[in-house]
């Protein structure tokens, strides 16, 4: 295990924000679209269900929409982007000495509790991201950069709800 002091500090957030904004601008300039994240998860689900139970995948009203004869569901821009995300994050973590298997949780709760809530959170986000046709990266971040109304509204409701619900979950965090 690496000793504590070899872990590099995080970037200054404003600097990181400018970098991210620049990257987003570059993405728009090159491809005409912005970033995204939940779309790749959706593609994975579509592809998996298609592999395991192809008949059902077609019949399912929602998943069926994303199946097409000439393109494999995983052959999607977002999937490739997420592959890059995983690689980039890994690289950053490796360079900074932050690679480590652990369950991150507040010392006031147990690992198990944290994992249970992570699962619940994931479930909710899975449902929410489909309802909202995007997540914080796709709808909110990219949406705001493109000045789309949907982006701002989605963002306001995500963070607004978070603040309102924060009180009830404070034990998990602080």
């Amino acid at each position, binding site marked *: 295990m690496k000793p504590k002091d070899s872990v590099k500090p995080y970037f200054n957030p404003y600097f990181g924000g400018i970098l991210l904004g620049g990257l987003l601008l570059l993405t728009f300039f090159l491809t005409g679209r912005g970033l995204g994240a939940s779309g790749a998860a959706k593609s994975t689900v579509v592809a998996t269900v298609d592999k395991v139970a192809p008949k059902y995948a077609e019949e399912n009203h929602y998943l069926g929409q994303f199946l097409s004869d000439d393109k494999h569901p995983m052959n999607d821009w977002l999937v490739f982007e997420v592959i890059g995300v995983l690689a980039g994050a890994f690289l950053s973590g490796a360079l900074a000495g932050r690679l480590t298997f*652990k369950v991150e949780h507040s010392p006031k709760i147990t690992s198990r509790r944290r994992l249970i809530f992570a699962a619940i959170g994931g479930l909710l986000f*899975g449902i929410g991201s489909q309802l909202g046709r995007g997540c914080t990266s796709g709808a909110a971040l990219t949406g705001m950069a493109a000045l789309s109304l*949907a982006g701002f509204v989605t963002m306001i409701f995500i963070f607004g709800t978070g603040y309102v619900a924060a009180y009830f979950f404070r034990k998990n965090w602080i």
Partner: protein
Amino acid sequence: MGPLIPQDIINPAWSNAIAVLIGMGFGFILESCGFSSSRKLAGVFYGYDFVVLRVFFTAAVTAAVGIFFFNYMGWLDARMLYINPYYINGAIVGGIVMGLGFITGGYCPGTSYCAAAIGKIDAIVFSVFMMVGILLFSLVYPLIENFYNASSKGPVLIYEALGMSPAVFLAIFVVIALVAFIVTSRIEKKVKKVEY
């Protein structure tokens, strides 16, 4: 000039390769800013760490002003950019559900990928269950199909909806961001520090 691929200035076959490279940049920046830590992320809701707001707002402002500037200079045709369509029901209810997901799980999809990539087990669990959630959604989809597809207003731009010119909106946006940065810095100083 831009956007390049939609106008075939760059061959669309490069699109996926570009996606990987851009994704790498995205993941690298997110992780380097600390978005791979659920406790840092949740800090925005409790006031002990506003990194989410800082990075997010700065990025949005930078990109939005950048797009405007590029469009003004003729380097980019902003009319060709993808604007995500506004579905009232989905945006509101989806936003609420995602907000709950954020405060319980401590991640959003993008950040969970980053955290999973560096080994955070809670992020891996989050990502896996997110896919389960998507599957669940598809199962109940027939029930909510109408709700989901209703109230579509198309790709509405926020300054149109507010009845102002893009430049004015951006100016206000920048000012709001600046105020937010100052206010949150003050708040952070007052709130009890959290050891990660």
